[in-house]
């Protein structure tokens, strides 16, 4: 009944959920408290952007909302803030995806850099408007930079290890 295309999409959806849950579990494991000196990349953010720009169908909106809401709950972050920002950002990238898929990787990387920077800024602005407590700017900025730096690595792993190719105009049905 299921055609190979649908099966493939669902396979990648399950990959996405599994990978995100794995990263989240790894992060909350009690393996000693890092003192924030070494910035850790926000891997699920990079993964989500990479996949939205390659295969938008494999990263449905519901999955993004679910993953990032759970992440907010588990990491003691402001409830819903991370999810809101990621939903908005991924929707924006989803809309731009046809144009970006015609760009070179450098162009795509530039778009993602801008998006991550905007997300970081948006989070600070919203927290500032709500007069909530914020982490020091330098630390947050360092984390954003490290996330941006690990984006190409995430792309390479998705492409060569998982076989997630870009949706390109040349062969439209290769989803």
């Amino acid at each position: 009944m299921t055609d190979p295309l649908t099966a493939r999409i669902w396979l990648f959806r399950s990959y996405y959920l599994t990978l995100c849950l794995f990263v989240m579990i790894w992060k909350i494991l009690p393996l000693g408290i890092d003192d924030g000196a070494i910035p850790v990349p926000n891997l699920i953010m990079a993964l989500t952007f990479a996949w939205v720009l390659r295969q938008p169908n494999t990263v449905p909106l519901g999955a993004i909302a679910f993953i990032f809401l759970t992440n907010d709950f588990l990491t003691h972050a402001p409830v819903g803030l991370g999810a809101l920002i990621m939903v908005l950002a991924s929707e924006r990238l989803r809309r731009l995806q046809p144009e970006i898929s015609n760009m070179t990787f450098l162009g795509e990387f530039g778009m993602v850099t801008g998006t991550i920077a905007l997300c970081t800024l948006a989070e600070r602005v919203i927290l500032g408007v709500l007069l909530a407590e914020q982490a020091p700017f330098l630390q947050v900025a360092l984390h954003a930079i490290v996330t941006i730096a690990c984006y190409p690595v995430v792309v390479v792993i998705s492409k060569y290890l998982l076989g997630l190719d870009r949706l390109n105009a040349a062969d439209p049905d290769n989803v």
Partner: protein
Amino acid sequence: MARDRHEENLAHPMRRLLVILLIIFLLGLILLWRIDNPRAERIRAAVVDRIVPNMEWAMAPVTGLGRMVDDFQSYARLYEQNEQLRRELQQMRAWREAAIQLEQENARLLDLNRVQPDPSLTWISGIVLADSGSPFRRSVLLNVGARDGVEDGWAAMDGLGLVGRIAGLGERTARVLLVTDTNSRVPVVIQPSGQQALLSGDNSTAPLIEFIETPEDIAAGDRIVTSGADGLYPAGLLVGQIVIDPDRAFRARLAADFGRLSFLRVMRNPDVVPLNDSDTLIGPPLPDPVTPELNAPDPTVSDPTPEAAETSADNTGTDGT
């Protein structure tokens, strides 16, 4: 073709509506978190309570692996550690002698005074299930919760020193806000000068010591213990030692081993009032504002009778408890 389909799909009114609803829902959650924080934290505790204990099967092997990597790293520094341990052992021997003598002396003194140790300081032990997962928030999750009689606000220690307090309680899990978190403030006393100060976390491993009256009386190496002034932490729990950072600010080197928190003691404290409403404070019950007025000496009466003075004294006594 695919792109047309793609765009068509995105512009679908149902999908657009769904996105807008989702955004409104998330905005609502953020506002709830900001406005009614205790309720949001209870929701968070409930969610964590559902998820984390169920993930234990998945977490156990990964935790084991991570600990092995940690252990291997310490294996590599074996020689260095061995030397250090030898030195420490030498010092400990001297301390042990002193401790034994002090213990004997203490026993004699206690016997003279007929003092009973405080029976309220019993504890519940819990295992650390997870940490906060974020470098900006310092908290760990324990596998004990309301089911085990843990209550919000109780202090948590490892074997040696103060670790934090319970902030967020689920049925099976409890979140411990560490003293290194930026939201943590602990009233402390610095020994031997006996000065009151505030231990305030700033996301570093060594929290700041603030509001010291006479900094001249304090030297590096002084002991820091909780003062119990807020009624939240029991008095006399060891926190750590004073260190002075390059900016001449006082910081605390914590006695608890924050690098490997695995078992924690949650100290039972019956005096803590649970935080149920957003407008109440954690702490000992405040004296009733009406009572002092009732018992205030009447200005028309020139000399209060001994009975009146006695009742007012009694009342202030009960208010204070």
